[in-house]
């Protein structure tokens, strides 16, 4: 496989049944856009990319939006179409994001048959009050059922997404959430601190003073997640991610390692070498451009400087259990780490800098120090 072979592909499916008030992704309700033409546009973009790059996927990741919102028919066409267009012989991980109540046993079986081997289920919480606040339309029971379907169909790589520091969510409630997810025994758990993203309804509420951020409280919930999940045998291998040994998300690890990836679909971001761009974030335009021009308009194109690439590597790799290599940190010369070591934020060994338990919740502050 040559140096320039792209091994990681992301597909953005921008449809959601309902819009969550904290979400800043490019997404919308399907309307008339979740149609055959959209699926063809995605397949066409894959073909177009194959002309520019040698593609031999090791990982595929379908995110959104809600990929499982595609109809069975469209889903089948998409998955089959990919098999026809891509050489999937090297594929080791194929993830689909899914939301409870957006698929049934047939859709699940279809994905499984077509080679999808990992599902990331957006559960967020096991409490109906919290789910309601988050604008999620499923109930805790539906989420459990959805998880069961996946297991029954034969998926052995399941992730559950959870969220903490949601307004009105107590530490006790979070503990229950964690216990419940542990009891279900997924292979992988993502636990995200709620983020107030600009241009979301939650952000407005925060600005209006109806919600409050409290980093001390966040720290307690974060700590609790690490402790409980580690005790249950999940390895805390990235700030927001925990996995049974061997069940880490290889696709996401590729992002953090700074590898090349191509993004397919509206608003999807690609990074090849020092070049980064984003597809047009408008589904109708996306489909039209693919049909009429055979290519997609690119937004926010940038060519990273080596220095910027270094910054990203530090910021991303520091978040992982392997840490960041000293060579990257000291690419431009010595960086004073005395204070970080004295304060017990990092440890060093084998040419790598790794966050301590104390350093983990302050990863961004530490990264800024290491950037120098």
């Amino acid at each position, binding site marked *: 496989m040559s140096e320039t072979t792209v091994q990681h592909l992301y597909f953005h499916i921008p449809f959601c049944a309902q819009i969550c008030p904290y979400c800043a992704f490019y997404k919308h309700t399907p309307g008339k856009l979740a149609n055959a033409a959209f699926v063809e546009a995605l397949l066409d973009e894959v073909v177009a990319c194959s002309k520019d790059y040698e593609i031999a996927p090791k990982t595929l990741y379908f995110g959104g939006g809600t990929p499982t919102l595609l109809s069975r028919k469209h889903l089948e066409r998409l998955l089959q179409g990919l098999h026809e267009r891509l050489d999937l012989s090297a594929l080791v991980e194929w993830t689909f994001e899914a939301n409870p109540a957006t698929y049934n046993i047939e859709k699940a079986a279809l994905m499984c048959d077509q080679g999808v081997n990992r599902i990331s289920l957006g559960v967020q919480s096991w409490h109906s009050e919290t789910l309601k606040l988050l604008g999620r339309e499923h109930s805790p029971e539906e989420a459990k059922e959805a998880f069961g379907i996946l297991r029954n169909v034969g998926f052995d790589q399941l992730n559950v997404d959870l969220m903490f520091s949601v307004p009105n969510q107590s530490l006790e409630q979070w503990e229950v959430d964690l216990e419940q997810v542990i009891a279900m025994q997924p292979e992988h758990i993502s636990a995200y601190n709620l983020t107030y993203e600009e241009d979301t309804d939650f952000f407005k509420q925060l600005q209006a003073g109806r919600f409050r951020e409290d980093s001390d409280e966040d720290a307690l919930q974060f700590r609790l997640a690490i402790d409980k999940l580690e005790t249950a045998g999940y390895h805390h291998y990235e700030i927001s991610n925990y996995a049974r040994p061997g069940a880490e998300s290889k696709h996401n690890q590729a992002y953090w390692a700074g590898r090349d990836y191509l993004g397919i679909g509206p608003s999807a*971001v690609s990074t090849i070498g020092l070049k980064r761009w984003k597809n047009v974030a408008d589904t109708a335009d996306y489909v039209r451009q693919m049909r009429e021009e055979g290519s997609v308009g690119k937004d926010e194109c940038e060519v990273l400087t080596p220095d910027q690439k270094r910054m*990203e590597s530090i910021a991303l790799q520091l978040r992982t259990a392997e840490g960041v290599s000293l060579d990257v940190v000291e690419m431009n010369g010595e960086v004073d780490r005395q204070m970080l070591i004295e304060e017990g934020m990092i440890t060093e060994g084998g040419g790598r800098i790794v966050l301590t338990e104390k350093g983990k919740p302050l990863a961004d502050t530490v990264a800024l120090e290491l950037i120098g």
Partner: protein
Amino acid sequence: MSIELTRNFSIIAHIDHGKTTLSDRLLEHTSTISQREQQDQLLDSMDLERERGITIKSHPVTMRYESKDGKEYRLNLLDTPGHVDFSYEVSRSLAACEGALLLIDAAQGVEAQTVANMHLATLQDLKVIPVINKIDLPGADLPMAKKQLEDIIAIPAEEAIEASAKMGIGIDDILEAVVERIPAPEQPDDDLLRATVFDSIFDTYRGVVSYVRVVSGQLKRGTAIKMMSTGKNYEVKEVGIFTPKQSAEDVLKAGDVGYVIANMKTSAEVKIGDTITESKRPCPKPLPGFQVVQPMVFSGIYPVSTDDFEQLKIAMGKLQINDAAFTYQAESSVALGFGFRCGFLGLLHMEIVQERLRREYDMDVISTYPGVIYQVTKTNGEELEVDNPSFLPEAQVIEEIREPIVRVFIMVPNQYIGEMMKMVLERRGELENTETLDEVRVMLTCLLPLNEILVDFNDKLKSLTRGYGSMDYEHAGYRPAKLVKMDMLISGESVDAFSSIVHRDKAQARGRHLAAKLKEVIPRQMFTVAIQATIGGNIIARETITAMRKNVTAKCYGGDISRKRKLLEKQKAGKKKMKAIGKVNIPQEAFIKVLKTSD
């Protein structure tokens, strides 16, 4: 025009009693400016002056007035600043006059500044013409105003002219009184050139413009002149009068007030109070100069960006030529880098200088907490003057520290006497005298440390009395006090910008206040930060900034990465602008906030 037909006068008044309005009315009445050109408050030409409704600079203007006696007079009006801080400007302008109009608001009566200004006029031996202004106001109380004039100012009430500057009532009477009551200027009988420089400005295109009063002889284009204090010679390029803008004339004669432009290039070449004479036929000795103004309030001014130091220096030089009372001297601070220790007449003066640096010179500056100048006697007998807390010697080698005291005249309505006295005592003041002005008001004369009235005394007085109180002050020497140097330590490191000299009994309260303020503005760090106020190593107040507990982005996947990096780039740039005190990073804004609002 002969000197007998010249009158030089000023208008003195408490702020808002109508000085500017009356000046405008006089200009209009003498057709110096047509009504069409008239823009309200003509003489306050600086934007700042108009905005704040105060006159900062002197604004001379020459008017022609045909009197009832049929003769045409040349009247030189010297508008003067109307704030206590600028009383030196008032005295300079008054020194160029033979008379003054003392303006009293008919509804407000005599105020603290009226008394102080009257005091200055008497010192200069001026003929004072009392004018009771604003008689059109429904609240005008003429008998009250007249009684106060007699009781407090000691001028017979019959001499008062009743006027309304706003409605144009009494303007003729005022002009006639100027001609009749104010004497013509006197001149020595030789005709050697003597002219006093009472102000100067720097004009980017024309260089130094000196404002002069010619006492004897004459000045015209081409005259070779000598500045008596420096002995330097120049050639006059232009002379003229103010109408009110500068308008060139052929000649300035004895008695005239006008301006001179010579080939002076730098602000340093002209000294306020200097005498101009002729190079070839110099007068034997200079005219009496002005008392050199001593700055009373000191503060460090630093460029926000260290690269701007040279530019700031140039700006300060230019400011100084228009403002002789402002002094500056380079200094450096560990926390703030290179800057200047500046001297001002008072708080308003300080604010104005800062504002002018910002507006006219586009400078971004930080200024440190204002202080006064202390006299220190060391145990070895050595005497020092200290205007910067960093230079105060160690406590054990200090025999005595003395602080400047001011005599404050405070006029308040009777019902506020109690609260007012409480405020005076809290600020280590003492009452010297109480004088009943009328049924509703008293004048309290108090001695207070200057340091205690620096920042907010006037504001507090105004709010306490709902705007009815007024104050003015004069310097009353130095007095020993139990003063100590208080340092602020951040994580054990002393931050020079926050050090101050305070009274022992007040140190703890101020230490607590500063520590709390610092806690508010210093962002949490990844470790605990101790803030301490100390005196000679003893901690008198402390606050703790607890360590930051969590700061980490939740999601970092494909599309999030650029955003994350851009944020880091921004934070990195922000960090560059922070000052590192030991391992603690403090944003520049934190310094500004603490230094600006501490009280």
